[in-house]
């Protein structure tokens, strides 16, 4: 059987080919079945288990009308190759909160995509926790269409052994005074590899828009590899955009602080390796999600 390939996570504005960062290519098959799950707004949070067989595709649809609120918590487990696409429509003045906790099995591949359209004064809050232990490809495409639409994303990850985490986030600011904020923090151990592409695109007409992207990568293994491309595209004068990235190992001063309290280097690195993920856990008020995260951490750190 010939091996088909899938290209995912493509940069909207590509750069030099020799960097090999323009997109990700992986072997994939289109054989598996697919299933669609509808989520409509409810007054209680929705909990979903996302799983499947081999090369299955799951589509989760979250749609809201005007002034509605939805909270969806997704936990991923039990599959070998899975593609999950979450399509979100945030109606006028509505608020969608999406929490995705990914702790996958060893030797698995996950393509996790989110496509969102946000209308006037709507907001999408996204929390993603990526714990491995397979390869994870995450793509999040968000169109801030209406005036004052907003997008906030907090990502936390821990990549170990020979795992791969490949992320592509694209925020398109169409409407006036739209706002986006992306924070992606995590740690790489052993021989892990991580790619982060983050694009903020201020389209013409997005007067008064603001977009911000920050990334902090803690490098802890001797054979780790980190690739980062934070992109800002701009066709509108009156906007404010910024991005920042900090990559490196535990800095001297922080290490000394830990050591002066009796916590040695290795222990300090262990604490910091999970810090980004612990932080996201604290941002969530929902106990069940916190449980997923703590259980996941326990398992991958054992």
């Amino acid at each position, binding site marked *: 059987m010939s091996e088909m390939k899938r290209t995912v996570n493509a940069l909207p504005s590509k750069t030099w080919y020799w960097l090999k960062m323009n997109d990700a290519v992986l072997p994939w098959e289109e054989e598996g079945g697919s299933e669609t799950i509808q989520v409509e707004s409810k007054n209680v949070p929705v909990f979903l288990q996302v799983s499947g067989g081999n090369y299955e595709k799951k589509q989760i649809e979250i749609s809201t009308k005007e002034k509605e609120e939805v909270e969806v918590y997704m936990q991923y487990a039990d599959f070998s190759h899975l593609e999950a696409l979450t399509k979100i429509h945030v109606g006028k003045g509505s608020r969608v909160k999406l929490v995705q906790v990914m702790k996958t099995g060893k030797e698995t591949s996950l393509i996790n995509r989110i496509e969102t359209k946000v209308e006037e004064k709507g907001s999408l809050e996204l929390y993603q926790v990526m714990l491995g232990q397979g390869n994870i490809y995450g793509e999040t495409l968000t169109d801030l269409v209406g005036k004052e639409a907003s997008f906030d994303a907090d990502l936390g990850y821990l990549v170990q052994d020979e795992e791969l985490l490949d992320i592509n986030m694209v925020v398109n600011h169409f409407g006036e005074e739209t706002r986006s904020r992306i924070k992606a*923090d995590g740690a790489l151990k052993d021989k892990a590899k991580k790619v982060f592409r983050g694009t903020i695109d201020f389209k013409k007409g997005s007067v008064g828009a603001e977009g911000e992207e920050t990334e902090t990568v803690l490098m802890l293994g001797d054979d780790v590899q980190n690739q980062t491309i934070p992109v800002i595209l701009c066709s509108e004068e009156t906007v404010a955009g910024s991005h920042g990235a900090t990559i490196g190992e535990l800095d*001297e*001063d*922080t290490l*000394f*602080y*830990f*050591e*002066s*309290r*009796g*916590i*040695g*280097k290795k*222990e300090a690195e262990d*604490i*910091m390796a999970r*810090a*980004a993920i*612990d*932080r996201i856990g*604290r941002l969530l008020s929902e106990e069940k999600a916190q449980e997923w995260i703590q259980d996941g951490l326990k398992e991958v750190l054992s």
Partner: protein
Amino acid sequence: MSHKLLTVKDLHVNVGEKEILHGINLQVGKGETHVLMGPNGTGKSTLGYAIAGNPRYEVTEGSILFNGEDITYMPVNERAKKGIFLSFQNPLEVPGVTLSAFIRSALEYKTGERIRLFTYKKKLLEMMELLNMDESYAERDLNVGFSGGEKKKAEILQLLMLEPSLAILDETDSGLDVDAVRTVSRGIQIYQERCKGSLLIITHSTKILESLHVDVTHVMENGIVVKEGDASLVDVINENGFTELRDEK
């Protein structure tokens, strides 16, 4: 003869190429409160960092003994486990790690045992209340967005929770308003009472000492100790500054 807790003998310390301490001699007994004073830039903090073991401060000559053990070249975290605590002048922000988690980790590594969450939390909140610290700070990322005063209180909170046998406080009162100084001072008193530990308080102002019992005062200048005395020396300095002492020599 009572065995001294800390003995610093002819200590020479370099920062980079430059020698900052030119032969410090100092002893602190168990349960004693010592004050280290001197004008700015004279090496007081350097001595504190050298005793704590910061690798940037290189000992070129001399020795440091703690409880009779030579710790001159011992790694920082081992000294901390043996009971040395340094409270920082400018505490660092550590995003991602809460104040509570930080202290609990330190306790667990020190004792080598798991701490029971309930007991721990109870004591933590008790100490926070004594320090007039709002309990919400426990779950906040360590020092992130804390005011100067709250950062210093967080350091004293660590002192009270970790119960070291020697606490070195580096300019703990700098940048604090009157109320905060009082609170921090109270915290130090509580440490004195509960732990009966030894204190080496590094300061160039004396406000914080007003309600503390001081056993010995050391005055440093240009990298050496120039004068030693009892608590009354503090008052002398308070009134006349450091120049009087220089003239005396």
